[in-house]
């Protein structure tokens, strides 16, 4: 059992949980109401896309996938971050 659990994916799981709590705290404490809360929101988006990338590389095992498949996923992450931030800032 120990050899199943002792893997880099376990450390990634711990990091993902920690980042979830950080985003939650940031999202809860950056005020409420109608105003733009741009810096905190951009950090929250960056953390979310970083977490997406970690899930893809370490849980879906795309880190060791052929370059094309990994490249498609990296491109998706980049596009997702660009789209979310651009739509949030400019809409």
């Amino acid at each position, binding site marked *: 059992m120990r050899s199943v659990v002792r893997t880099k994916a376990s450390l990634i799981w711990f990091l993902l949980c920690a980042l979830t709590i950080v985003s939650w705290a940031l999202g809860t404490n950056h005020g409420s109401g109608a105003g733009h809360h741009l810096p905190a*929101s951009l950090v929250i988006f960056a953390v979310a896309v970083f977490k997406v990338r970690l899930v893809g590389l370490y849980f879906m095992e795309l880190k060791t996938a052929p370059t094309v498949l990994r490249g498609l996923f990296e491109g998706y992450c980049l596009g997702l971050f660009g789209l979310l931030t651009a739509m949030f800032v400019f809409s």
Partner: protein
Amino acid sequence: MTNMVDSARAADDAGLDASHASQRHVPGEPGIWVLLFGDMLVFTVLFTVYLHQRGIRPELFAESQGALNRALGATNTLVLLTSSILVVFATRALRRPELRYLARRLTLGGVLVGSCFVVIKAFEYHEKIAAGITPSTNEFFMYYFVLTGLHLAHVVIGLIVLTVLSTLARKPEPTKTHIAFFEGGACFWHMVDLLWIVIFPLVFLVR
């Protein structure tokens, strides 16, 4: 010798056995990736539409978001992450003959933890409906119910897939096709996790 040790460690880190270390490996059947990327793109279009609508009525969206239960949303993220890591362990166990006996239990563990997401989401919906909030309340809640409801449907499908995988994990000597099927199903479950990782901050946190 050092290279061999490094190579084995790299394989362990990736959750793969030594036979996978020397070559790049497509997790699951290649066709599953068409489905996964297609699904991810459909959700990305929905995220874009949501942000466009939010840009039109920022006050309404910010005010309505205040009625959401962020603690439940964060708990559900932790639930899916935990279920996902159990499925990662199950995939790893299935590949190793000496650890294969753990694969079924770990997959069922993933189902059990993943089911908590449905229970929590049902509680969250009940909370909203009891407060008189429905999809027709306003535009924000329409998108809230559509995005989270569509994702919930994926969670339910994922739980069914994991249950099927748990019967596959019982095989004492799974073939390469069985293992590829297991990997593909596991990747679907990780995609469900991945989508929630975006939906939670998008709908519950940023404003």
